[in-house]
């Protein structure tokens, strides 16, 4: 596999935990090229954690739209964003398994065109779920890579994910009570694939452990408390990435809620209680395992700190 020698940072999730905010924050890295497809889904598809048909159909859909978008006269930067998306989607359309083309291909057009790129970035929340073997291969291909993980209270993250799911389903208008009951039924079924995935998106420590085992350093952004210590987080992120972030972009992002789901769903007390119980067990984080990580502890929400062992 073609190696990428430039410094590289992955946004690795978690889904509905502020990953879009993180991907916007990566734009503040000077001379960075952030892939214009926010979620490339290369590695999760390649390692068969996601259906290749999903990537194929989405790529074809976007490809058709983006070629149409070339018809008017887009400005130079818009043209570059469009063509880089076209390049990736064209390749995904032809090779959705990602087994016959290198990850580096998706950055080649930009690297050919520009000679000022010092940092490469890409964000796909599903990368959080990659197994250690895959991460070892990534580390081998991109030796100078790091990852940023957005972490959110597992219960809040679940509710946000369910809100996102419900907004796009036929049962969207069922009302709070029925929606809560639906979520409870899904949790109780024990076999629901969506619930299984949500469990994985809440297993932050396991994800961090896999990345660290592969030698990929992870910076954690606690989105629940981000607004109270934003400048401190930014400063630590700068230290982690070894760059000075663009202050204008950083300031513009301050206090912003990005990619919020505009769908009104208030979970029932029963659902909240069930979720709290489900995600308080040791395998879901948190507090005990977190306590061993000073870097993580620093940003831990007060509610979690309260249950830490003294």
């Amino acid at each position, binding site marked *: 596999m073609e190696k990428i020698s430039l410094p590289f940072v992955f946004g690795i999730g978690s889904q509905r935990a502020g990953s879009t905010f993180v991907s916007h924050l990566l734009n503040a890295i000077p001379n960075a090229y952030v892939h214009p497809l926010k979620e490339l889904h290369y590695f999760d598809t390649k390692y068969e954690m996601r259906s290749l048909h999903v990537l194929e159909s989405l790529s*074809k859909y976007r*490809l*058709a739209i983006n*070629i*149409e978008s*070339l*018809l008017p*006269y887009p400005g*130079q930067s818009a*043209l*570059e964003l469009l*063509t880089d998306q*076209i*390049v990736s989607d*064209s*390749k995904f*359309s*032809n090779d959705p398994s990602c087994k016959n083309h290198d990850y580096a*291909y998706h950055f*080649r*057009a930009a690297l*050919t*065109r520009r000679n000022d790129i010092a940092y490469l970035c890409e964000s796909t929340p599903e990368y959080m779920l990659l197994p250690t073997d895959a991460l070892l291969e990534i580390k081998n291909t991109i030796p100078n890579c790091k990852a940023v993980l957005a972490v959110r209270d597992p219960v809040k993250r679940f509710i946000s994910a369910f809100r996102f799911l419900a907004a796009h389903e036929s049962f969207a208008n069922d009302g709070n009570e029925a929606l809560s009951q639906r979520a409870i039924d899904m949790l109780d079924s024990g076999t629901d694939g969506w619930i299984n995935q949500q469990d994985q998106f809440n297993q932050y420590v396991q994800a961090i452990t896999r990345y660290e085992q592969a030698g990929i350093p992870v910076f954690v952004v606690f989105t629940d408390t981000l607004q109270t210590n934003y400048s401190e987080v930014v400063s630590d992120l700068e230290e982690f990435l070894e760059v000075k972030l663009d202050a204008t972009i950083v300031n513009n992002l301050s206090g912003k809620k990005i990619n919020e789901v505009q769908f009104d769903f208030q979970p029932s007390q029963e659902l909240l209680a069930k979720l709290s119980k489900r995600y308080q067990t040791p395998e879901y984080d948190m507090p005990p395992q977190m306590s061993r990580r000073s870097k993580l502890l620093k940003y831990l929400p007060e509610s979690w700190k309260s249950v830490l062992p003294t």
Partner: protein
Amino acid sequence: MKHRFVIGIGSQRAGSTLFHHLLEESTHIFMHPVKELHYFDTLYGFRAKEGLKDYSLRQMAREVEKIVTAKDLSFLHAKRYKCYLRANKTLGMHPIEKIHYLDLFRPCLMNNKLLGEVTPEYMLLDDAAIIKMKQVIGENAAIILICRNPVKRLLSAVKLMNSYNNLRLNNETAGIWIERMMTDNNSWMLAQDKYNDYQSAIERYSRHFPHFIAISYDQMVTEPTQTAEKLANALNIQVNSERFKLAAEKIVNNLGSDFSVSEDVVEKIAARYQQNQQFLENFFGFPLIK
């Protein structure tokens, strides 16, 4: 109809690429950058739908590779290039039944009243397909068929076959290969017979299109000025005969002489196409260049 179409319908290996180039150079017709759109032959079942899809997607992928290696993307601003990329996208990603022929010429419709393309396979359409084609492009469309000595056309088709399929034919094996094809009468050979059947194509198209003209390949190459005038008169389009002549001097798509066959084989081909040759000589009123 706001736009008028000018469509070359063949024959294959009879100078259709040259003709596309000549019209581009000497007229105001917007000749489609995808030289052969293969719209009507695919739509009416004369060509496999998957074949057009695969070919168009390959063409698009090739252009994407050009973008990947480009230091400067300014070529993407050219409408002609956008039309090329978009037409390949459309033909590659949408069912042919869902595609409107005129749409394939976007974004070049606004300032181009005359729209053209050349697809040799259109020559093979039957009456029913031609009637449907007329409903799409209008009775006012100009249709052009280029007729070439059937023997020379066949030999050129063999060279193309040799080149595309890496048959590695030489002077000796080419003759054997052609004779075997003629004996077997396989699908390739029968297709060649159709591409040499100018009479049927002329009869079919002239029945449905008042602005139809058959022109001689020999005359187009040796007397380009007369051909230009003939085209202008028959089709009611403006042709710059001087530019037509200059462009005709550049023979496009010449595959070169990678082999030549014996007189004996040439005679056998001539015998197969004797009626076709005779028809052309009578039709044009001068002997074919041997």
